[in-house]
């Protein structure tokens, strides 16, 4: 536990925070390409955030302090989560701060504050969005926990860095249980990050939106933080997925050199995952809101099937 490792830890978190909008931009660009549109630049999310930071914030008269505080809390939780998730190295000091279950709780905290802030002003759309967000959340969370339990059963620990290391070092083989849980995790990722089968991130159609409805009352720096937090959430989920299902390439030492060597692997994984995400979004249609529980029940089913198959076949 010396100074270098902490400096590395801080650098890793800063890199995650800085790279998150880039990942979002990459997903958007891939999506535009697949849909035969002219793609916006990968840097577009940065420009949006910069533009929003330069504007003056407008806040409703009846907004409580919670409304002003929520963006900072949400952004803070996402940064903390980025520190806990072993994206670059599994031996960084902060990755041990919380295990995977606490991480799910941390993500739930962010969701609660987003929803509370959306209901704070008392407009119809905010409340509607908050309710839908909570509905999606309470169905996605058990599925996510089940996914983590399967990985925990295989590696006999709930600490995310340890899970990642065990899975990376075990003998290669066919693991039907991990394949099922990977599908379940992808579905949870799509639902939690307001991607297409559940929510359309680029719509302003009142009847279908979830993510946009939550942020409707925010402007300027608050909105910028919320959007940045959303980008960071997508990045975090992708990194949880890498830690569980493609753990190869992450550094297992604390040296700067090992971490620098892990960076290209992470970038490669992110590029592929972003393209895959865009592909899934392009081939699937947006579900009606009332079909979302069915979608998430399927995710839960996949995760539990993974668990049962692991218990029966030991694979």
């Amino acid at each position: 536990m010396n100074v270098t490792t902490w400096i590395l830890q801080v650098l890793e978190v800063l890199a995650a925070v800085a790279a998150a909008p880039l990942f979002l931009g990459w997903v958007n660009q891939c999506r535009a390409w697949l849909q035969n549109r002219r793609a916006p630049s990968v840097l577009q999310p940065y420009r949006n955030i910069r533009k929003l930071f330069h504007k003056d914030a407008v806040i409703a008269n009846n907004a409580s302090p919670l409304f002003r505080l929520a963006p900072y809390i949400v952004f803070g939780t996402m940064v903390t989560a980025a520190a806990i998730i072993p994206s670059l190295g599994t031996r960084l000091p902060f990755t041990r701060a919380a295990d995977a279950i606490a991480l799910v709780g941390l993500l739930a905290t962010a969701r609660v504050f987003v929803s509370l802030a959306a209901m704070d002003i008392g407009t119809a759309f905010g409340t509607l969005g908050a309710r839908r967000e909570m509905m999606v959340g309470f169905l996605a969370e058990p599925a996510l926990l089940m996914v983590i339990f399967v990985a925990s059963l295989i590696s006999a620990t709930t600490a995310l860095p340890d899970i990642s290391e065990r899975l990376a070092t075990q003998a290669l083989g066919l693991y039907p249980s991990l394949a099922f849980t990977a599908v379940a995790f992808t579905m949870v990722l799509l639902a939690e990050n307001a991607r297409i089968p559940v929510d359309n991130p680029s719509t302003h159609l009142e009847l279908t939106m979830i993510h946009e409805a939550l942020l409707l009352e925010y402007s300027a720096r608050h909105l910028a933080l919320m959007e940045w937090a959303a980008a960071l959430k997508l990045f975090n989920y992708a990194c949880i997925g890498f830690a569980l299902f493609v753990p190869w390439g992450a550094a297992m030492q604390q040296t700067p050199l090992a971490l620098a060597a892990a960076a290209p692997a992470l970038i490669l994984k992110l590029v592929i995952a972003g393209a895959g995400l865009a592909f899934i979004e392009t081939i699937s249609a947006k579900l009606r809101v009332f079909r979302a529980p069915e979608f998430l029940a399927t995710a839960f089913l996949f995760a539990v099937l993974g668990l049962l198959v692991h218990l029966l076949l030991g694979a």
Partner: protein
Amino acid sequence: MSLPFDLQILNALAALLLLVSFAMLSQRRIVTLVNLLAFQGALLCAATLLLAWRTRDNHLYVSAGLTLALKVIVLPWLLHRLIKRLDVYWDTESLLNVAGTMLIGLLIVVFSFGLAQPISALASTATRSSIGIAVAVVLLAFFMMITRRKATSQVVGFLSMENGLFFGAMSATYGMPMIVEFGVALDVLVAMLVLGVFFFQIREQFDSLDLQHLEALREDR
């Protein structure tokens, strides 16, 4: 993992069989249901071939060929033809509460894994751990027959149940005796043909394939 690679593939195929059963349970479209049945047959055929190669048991090759011919080609083809002629090709079936059905399905899987545990302990085959999956496939198909109302999907459930039984026999004892397998194959084929005739009769009587109509006893026709 210490298992040899071919057993790993067999386990993966078994897991996929279970997944297909769930897909059938939640599928609304009849033509997709038939395609899923064909896919289940194909998985079964692949598993049989792999097991035949592993055990060097020649009669398993024959039953793999039988599975391919009957369950992947003939029966789905018959079903496709049937639903085309019945004019229900693109029909969908309203399902009650898919999420609830899935959860009950999961309970069924847990139950059948428990049920199969003593059988697996007694069996000496390399594939004994997948007996639980075979039992689950049978019970899930049974459950599907209970939840469906249309005659066509009930028949698909019946055929899927047969697939499960076949897989169970394969993983517990490396397949049934040849003569029994031929007998069962013939039975299924004949049952399919007879049920096909039944479909037309049911529809002529009630103008629909909904089996709820069969439950009411009416003398005043």
